């Protein structure tokens, strides 16, 4: 269970909300309304007053690397620091889990060893999702996870997100796709362009 109390990300007004295990909260709003800032604040990547709890543990009670293994932020534009995607995977990653994730997103294992520069944008985005899910975080903060994907891949990613929810993970999803929000989200959080007013509602 993810609980956010009076979290003030950037210039947003303090936000309080909860996402139960296995549920998905969609964060919506126009560009520049602070959706990404909110996810980054939850992952403790930017300083932000307020509190974030996962199963009753506040982020400052654990080390930052530990927190970010629990609360996984997946950026809209995935970045790589090695020549091939394999270099960016945790060294102790289970081969079986890796394979299952690759298959579920229709990626062949060879993609892991091709230079990042020759992969398509969509392949990179799906590989970033594989990378983010390998060590099984408790909470997923997904920033436009299907932004660069065709309809088929989008469907596979949504299926994978649904599977993660079934496995008991809380998901916070930033999406511009209203139909996708309808398909996945249990609740919505709308950030206005004024960057201060917010409303939450059921879909």
């Amino acid at each position, binding site marked *: 269970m993810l609980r956010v109390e009076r979290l003030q990300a950037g210039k947003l007004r303090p936000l309080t909300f909860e996402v139960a295990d296995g549920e998905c909260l969609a964060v919506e709003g126009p560009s520049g309304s602070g959706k990404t800032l909110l996810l980054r604040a939850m992952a403790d990547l930017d300083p932000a007053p307020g509190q974030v709890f996962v199963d009753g543990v506040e982020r400052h009670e654990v080390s930052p690397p530990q927190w970010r293994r629990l609360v996984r932020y997946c950026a809209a534009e995935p970045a790589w620091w090695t020549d091939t995607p394999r270099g960016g995977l*945790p060294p102790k990653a289970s081969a079986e889990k890796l394979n299952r994730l690759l298959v579920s997103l229709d990626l062949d294992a060879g993609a892991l060893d091709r230079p990042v520069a020759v992969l398509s944008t969509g392949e990179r985005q799906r590989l970033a999702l594989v990378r983010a899910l390998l060590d099984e975080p408790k909470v997923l903060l997904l920033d436009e996870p299907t932004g660069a994907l065709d309809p088929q891949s989008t469907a596979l990613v949504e299926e994978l997100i649904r599977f993660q929810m079934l496995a008991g993970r809380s998901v916070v999803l930033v999406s511009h796709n209203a139909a996708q929000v309808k398909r996945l989200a249990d609740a919505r959080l709308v950030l206005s362009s004024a960057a201060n007013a917010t409303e939450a509602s059921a879909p």
Partner: protein
Amino acid sequence: MSYVPLSYLDLVLAATLLIANGAISWAFRLGLEKSIAIAAVRMVIQLALIGIVLKLIFAQTSPVWTAGFAVIMVAAATLEIAGRLNGQLPTWPLMGLSGATLLFVGTFVTIFGVGFVITPTPWYGARYILPILGMVMGNTMTAVALVLDSLSEAARRERGAIEARLALGATRFEALSGPLRSALRTGMMPMLNSMATTGIVALPGMMTGQIIAGADPIGAAKYQVLIMFLIAGATALASLLAAVGGVMLLTDARHRLRLM
């Protein structure tokens, strides 16, 4: 020991070479005329002052004067680094890091070189301490500036990758390991290059100075070898301290990237 002393007229004669710098700047409209003039005047004044000050200090026997002068050198080098990195890192922490690095490395290497290798009597004699500290400090200052510049530049350029690693649970040193390694390489490279070419392509200033002053060339070469080793050790140590400190300045205690 005898050499041909230079008259002030000789120096004026040498200064005419600067006309070339001015002419190039003027012909290509580089706008450097003012900088050239200021730099040349600064150089002359600084060297004239240092000649006078060193003469005074050499006349003293108290190590307090030597130490005081050393502190001024460290402070000047610190300000120079802060100036070169203006806007890339927060000013006061940057000055603290640079000053501490230079002070530690300068003291350590100079005392090692003079106190344990050369061992003059007294070992703290300004005639050995200050020239060696000066050479060590000049190179160390460049190394620290290069390391911090490379590190903050890479942190900016690779921000996405660094934050991706942090988001995946890396510590700040893991996430910045790439920039850290390239910064260390950048900091140590100039000294490695100059060790490889010194004596063939370039005759070091200290060695030529000793030779002109009438010293035995073999003795001068030996001194130069010592100095090169001292500088190599100093730049390596300073690069490491600056790189580790630089990572701390670019991040905070919660392992977040904090770019200016």
